């Protein structure tokens, strides 16, 4: 065996181990969501066979537990995720286009401010934030996307600015000469070219908002509005007992949409749309 293929095999082995480590928690969730509650703690890694098999009873239990309907949690999660991601994509891509194309001290300041916001941990600002959200009435599922826009802007602007800088300016100049104003240039020329970055930023933001627990927990009125992660947290009986089987079932339900979405979109992440626009 040559030296090269040896090191290749070694690398494959290391990557396989890393793969297993990553997939393991998901496998544990899948296994235990079909297991009787009592066996979750005792036989965590066993297959749900024989008397351990619970069928879909955990799912039904999880969805019907407590007074708050699970369907409504799903509705709010979808609403918040879709609205937040849409807001982030639209506003940050526009802002990034301006920042990348207009060379002024203000643009540079805004850019560094956005990038710096990624450095600040959420825990540092969360209490002042929840107070501010109350005062400004941002504590409903319809207004919380504004807060997400603020937190998501840093990464999104960072990624969009990098991409816009790689688009040749001549394409926008050609559009200006062809008769497009800034709005038409943005929507008909720049935005379609940004598609790969829009999709990658979109996936990151969707996964983050959909799975986010702390922000809605702190900001929303939990008696009225719950998202799926909060709903799962409240799967507690009296005296604080937790139905682990039902919890696992709901976790599985909550990650399925994200996984499906990711699989559908992954080819777009890699594909470069700008190929062929200019000599390359």
């Amino acid at each position: 065996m040559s030296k090269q293929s040896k090191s290749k095999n070694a690398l494959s082995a290391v990557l396989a181990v890393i793969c297993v480590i990553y997939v393991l928690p998901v496998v544990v969730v899948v296994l235990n969501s079909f297991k009787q509650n009592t066996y979750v703690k005792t036989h965590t890694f066993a297959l749900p066979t024989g008397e351990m098999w619970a069928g879909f009873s955990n799912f039904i239990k999880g969805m019907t537990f407590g007074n708050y309907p699970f369907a409504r949690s799903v509705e709010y999660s979808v609403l918040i995720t879709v609205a937040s991601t849409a807001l982030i994509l639209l506003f940050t891509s526009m802002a990034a286009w301006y920042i990348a194309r207009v060379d002024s001290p203000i643009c540079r300041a805004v850019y560094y401010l956005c990038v710096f916001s990624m450095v600040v941990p959420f825990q540092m600002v969360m209490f002042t934030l929840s107070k501010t959200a109350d005062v400004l009435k941002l504590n409903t599922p319809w207004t919380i996307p504004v807060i997400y826009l603020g937190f998501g802007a840093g990464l999104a602007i960072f990624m969009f600015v990098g991409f816009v800088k790689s688009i040749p300016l001549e394409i926008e100049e050609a559009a200006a000469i062809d008769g497009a104003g800034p709005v038409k240039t943005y929507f008909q020329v720049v935005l379609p070219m940004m598609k790969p970055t829009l999709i990658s930023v979109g996936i990151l933001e969707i996964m983050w908002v959909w799975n986010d627990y702390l922000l809605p927990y702190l900001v929303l009125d939990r008696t009225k509005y719950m998202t799926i992660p909060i709903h799962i947290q409240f799967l507690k009986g009296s005296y604080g007992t937790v139905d682990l089987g039902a919890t696992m079932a709901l976790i599985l339900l909550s990650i399925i949409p994200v996984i499906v979405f990711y699989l559908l979109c992954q080819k777009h992440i890699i594909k470069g749309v700008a190929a062929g626009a200019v000599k390359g």
Partner: protein
Amino acid sequence: MATVSLRHIVKIYPNSNDGKKHKPTNLKVTEEGVLAVQDFNLEIADQEFIVLVGPSGCGKSTTLRMVAGLEEISKGELYIDDKLVNDVAPKDRDIAMVFQNYALYPHMTVRQNMEFPLKLRKVPKAEIDQAVDQAAEILGITQYLDRKPKALSGGQRQRVAIGRAIVRAPKVLLMDEPLSNLDAKLRNQMRAEIIKLRQRIKSTFIYVTHDQTEAMTLGDRIVIMKDGVIQQIGTPQEVYDDPVNMFVAGFIGVPQMNFYDGKLLRSADGKYSVQVEDAVIELSAEKQKNLAANNVAAQDVTVGVRPDHITLKEVPGKMIKGKVDVSELMGSAVHLHINACGKDGVIIVPTLDLKGNKTYSMGSDIEFTFDGGVAHVFAKDTQNNLEFNAQ
């Protein structure tokens, strides 16, 4: 369909406040900033083909971009069809532009690319289809209309870019080095196509290039620029025959003009001749007249002679000695790279003249001369052609 006049156009890039120094350049720097284009004056006639030519950084693209409206004009006035357009947006100037890197919209098909300017102008669908089909036919890209730009070759992409520009019959068609991304063969082919295109559409053309061949073959008139300043404006023949200074003389013509240190002599009866080493060559009657009109005094000068104007014919008393460095057979002619009077230069000898004669090996001695009608006399200090500018 349109005249264009540029009057005292100036482009200044202001000095930045952040303490960053501009890159070292030959451009003039004033307190206001770097002068990229200085006092540019040009009247372009309707349907004329003007070529702006010069080395990189000479301000030719900046000038074109000012006409397009992509760069602000710092000073001066720009008129298209006698209308002042300094503050008119690019889209309202009725111009079209072809970029060096094509600048096609990558997410649209060829047809959508070409339709785009017409759609934005809300032209009826039937008219759009007709215009696109016609332009595609002219450029031979009909079969590619449904492809995306990335599925096309460089030459095809540039055709699409030209198609997008001509589809709305603009008053002025601007081209910014459109052929420089193509390989040599394709470039020659596209150059011929542009000449044909020019006869079919009735636009005024402004074409920027650093390639003097393109300038000579395409332009009705050529504008030669250097360091933001116009050096000469004239027809290709004029700038080739009568360059106003050493820069133009050296820039136009391939291979480059040969320059030798020499003397301009004036005899007692006012006859001018040039002396290079021991050879004394009397200038032609026309040159005599021009020099006399400027009352040029005898002085040290630089004598310029084009490689194809040099002959190896023996003329006693007028021969200049040199040594052959390299001999290149180009087919119809042989290019002899020689060193004479301490300067490197090139002589073009038609292959027919050499038939049966000796070949020139490296290091062999050679003697050559030139006629008094083809010598250009440049002042040592200003480098101006003394025939046209005695200063």
